[in-house]
């Protein structure tokens, strides 16, 4: 049966694949070829369902039949959930598997690739990987962004699709109860939060509402955008950003001073969750479930899901996305977006004796057939092709389990290097979130992202020497100011002076020299 499905899949995809010659090369090898793989990422520490490497992903089985290449798990650091730790452990053993993949591999791969730990992929891609080449020909900026300081590319990244990640959410039913509209600018936001605090929108007669809450405390820093400051330049927190074409750190800007002073004021007034720093990941479950939380900044899809989950528990519960409030200068931005390329993916190690077969295998996941497999799982099992569109089966969409969790167990959406297909997520995005995404799509809210730089060894040494301490200091001061110990406006000059003493200028210098080399800016 599987053979039949597979044949159909191949036939189906060949008929409409763009690079016509791509699938003709399958299988890649006549005799089965085993390649070992390190695959360490958040959902699985090992190449098997949920990290259980004694089992084989259904997706892997199909890929084996199609390519004749068998990936065999050889993941290091499987008892740790920290990918960087696992990767460092792997590198320290010196005994690298053929393919090194998973989350957060960009930095180590680009640092140790030039030292000889990984094979440069430029020529291999140009000669043997037509699908990968076609993708990057369309996105040359991303090719630049993944390159190491020697100009070579050492890994094929996981390439997320879709634009927005997180959004501003508000309890529409609370707004209705108080006769308010969704806030359109920072002043209205303030008034709305005050109303949530004082006017008992949950109607229990107690002043127990938490007007603004977040799951990761760093998410509160998005409020900085409302005073034209930035909280980060990338899709992780506290990163450098691009300011007028040069690299700078958001926490060393004057706009940050003013923004954080206001966040501290809001915190002191009880508009922001008083337990901001210790509430942790259960904040959303708890505060929404207990009918206490009013607004947040969180993921479109998962946050909208509470409308269904809490429909019976909280009467009238309606938690919907609204447009980011305009800043003091009238700017409307959504700082958080999906980064077009992740530091995740996979690389070919120096000890791999089959680099050509491996790059062809990598290329398979960029072909129409491979990309469908990587995104949606096994055709006929989890999805069907309907009018040329991959559509999940009902039992997948209505299983009660999030579709992404199901995919991770199938072996789809695993952090191999592949182009993600947004159609995968759209299908299980709730209506309320879809409306929100459409709302956000009406305006151009995105800001330029800083895709990172690759340091040479001298630059890396400067960065390592100064930056970890600088970031520690920045975060220490940041939390202290929010908590009201110290006044950022009074402390600002001393703060900037300390940063400079700690080597901030030196870090900026290497950042910018690396940036110019990499992007030709």
């Amino acid at each position, binding site marked *: 049966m599987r053979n039949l499905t597979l044949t159909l899949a191949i036939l189906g995809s060949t008929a409409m694949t763009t690079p016509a010659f791509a699938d003709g090369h399958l299988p890649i090898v006549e005799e089965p070829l085993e390649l070992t793989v390190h695959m360490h990422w958040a959902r699985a520490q090992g190449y098997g369902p949920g990290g259980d490497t004694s089992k084989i992903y259904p997706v892997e089985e199909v890929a084996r039949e199609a390519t004749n290449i068998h990936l065999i798990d050889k993941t290091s650091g499987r008892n740790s959930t920290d990918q*960087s730790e696992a990767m*460092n452990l792997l*590198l320290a053993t010196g005994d690298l598997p053929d393919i090194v993949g998973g989350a957060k591999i960009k930095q180590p791969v680009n640092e140790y690739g030039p030292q000889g730990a990984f094979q440069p992929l430029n020529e291999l891609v140009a000669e043997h990987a037509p699908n990968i080449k076609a993708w990057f020909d369309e996105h040359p900026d991303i090719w630049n962004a993944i390159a190491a300081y020697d100009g070579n590319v050492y890994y094929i990244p996981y390439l997320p699709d879709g634009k927005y990640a997180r959004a501003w959410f508000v309890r529409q039913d609370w707004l209705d109860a108080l006769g308010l509209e969704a806030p359109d600018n920072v002043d209205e936001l303030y008034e709305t939060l005050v109303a949530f605090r004082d006017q008992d929108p949950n109607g229990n007669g107690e002043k127990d509402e938490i007007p603004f809450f977040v799951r990761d405390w760093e998410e509160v820093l998005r409020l900085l955008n409302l005073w034209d400051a930035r909280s980060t330049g990338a899709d992780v927190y506290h990163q450098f950003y691009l300011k007028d074409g040069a690299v700078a750190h958001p926490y060393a800007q004057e706009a940050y001073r003013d923004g954080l002073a206001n966040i501290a004021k809001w915190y002191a007034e009880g508009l922001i969750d*008083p337990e901001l720093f*210790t509430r942790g990941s259960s904040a959303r479950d708890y505060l929404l479930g207990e009918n206490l939380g009013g607004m947040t900044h969180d993921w479109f899809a998962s946050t909208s899901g509470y409308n269904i989950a809490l429909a019976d528990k909280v009467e009238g519960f309606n938690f919907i996305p609204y447009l980011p409030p305009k800043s003091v200068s009238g700017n409307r931005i959504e700082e958080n977006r999906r980064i077009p390329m992740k530091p995740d993916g996979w690389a070919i190690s120096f000890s791999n004796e089959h680099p050509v077969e491996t790059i062809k295998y990598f290329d398979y996941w960029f072909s129409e057939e491979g990309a469908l497999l990587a995104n949606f799982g096994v055709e006929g099992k989890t999805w069907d092709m309907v009018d040329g569109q991959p559509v999940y089966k009902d039992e997948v969409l209505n299983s009660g389990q999030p579709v992404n969790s199901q995919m991770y167990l199938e072996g789809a959406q695993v952090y191999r290097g592949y182009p993600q297909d947004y159609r995968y997520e759209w299908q299980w995005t709730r209506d309320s979130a879809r409306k929100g995404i459409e709302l956000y799509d009406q305006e151009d809210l995105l800001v330029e992202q800083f895709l990172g730089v690759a340091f040479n060894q001298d630059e890396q040494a400067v960065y390592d020497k100064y930056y*970890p301490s600088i970031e520690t200091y920045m975060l220490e001061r940041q939390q202290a100011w929010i908590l009201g110990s110290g006044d950022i406006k009074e402390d600002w000059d001393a703060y900037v002076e300390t940063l400079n003493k700690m080597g901030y200028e030196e870090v900026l210098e290497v950042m910018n020299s690396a940036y110019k080399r990499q992007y030709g800016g």
Partner: protein
Amino acid sequence: MSMDPNTSGISTEELVVEAREAQRDLKPSKLQNLGDHFKREWQLYVMLVPTIVWLLVFLYKPMYGLQIAFKDYSIFRGVAASPWVGLEHFQTLFGNDQFLRALKNTIIISFYGLIFGFPMPIIIALMFNEILKQWFKKSAQTIVYLPHFVSSVIIAGIVITAFSPSAGIVNTFLGWFGIDPIYFLTKPEWFRPIFVGTGIWQEAGFQSIVYLAAIAGVSPTLYESAVVDGASRWQMMWKITIPSILPTIIIMLIIRIGNMLEVSFEMIILLYQPATYSTADVVNTFIYRQGIQGGQYDLAAAAGLFNAVVAFVLVMTANTISKRYSRTSLW
């Protein structure tokens, strides 16, 4: 040497010397003796093997890697191929205010732990010793041992909940006295008491086992004669129990001092925030952030080596002092 008035004429030393001489006469040769010894006691040596192997593999072999503290270490190039840089990493460390702060915090937290944490298991053991009802003693012991077996992650969760400003038991209690909720875990001044207190709560009961064992070894005749002499329980505790377990207490103290800088950093990582770094960041968490997470193994090794040297000096000092004044020592 003080003579014991209770024994007649010959002292212990003399007896030992006599016995040795008698043995020497019997000895055919050292080698043969060793062979006989092994033949007789081979089971003991077999039992020793795993420990020696463990020591060699996990404690002696890794010492080879200590040299990276003096090298510009690249994980991929390996220990041997990385170039030497002398004391550069130590200079970096001591030029880093955050390291010095972490060192200060480590010493303060350890010191608190020693002052408040060390006597607690002894007190618990003495208290258990005074309990007469067996069922109560057994259940009380189980209850105080229990936290030791709970994972740090769970303990940290309990602590975070207990000290939460909105729902925590501590703030609820303070609320009865009209005190406004305090957000304890973001206040630098509260971190050390909370951390040290948690450590005592978690480990004091379990650590008392050693002292209970020592108390069980005290000869009952001592107590019986004390009862005949009309001593109160309090007097028996001070005059018999505590002096009898003093050697155990001192050995434990020396070990404790040797481990002083080994603050249980997983608990700190679970409880600290950037807001409390100023009192909570210890050498081990500093190493973890800079070294392991930041990939600077050479710097982390330098900090770790420094830690070990300080611990060695501490334990040597404690041992020497103890040897001189109480005649009890580790070696």
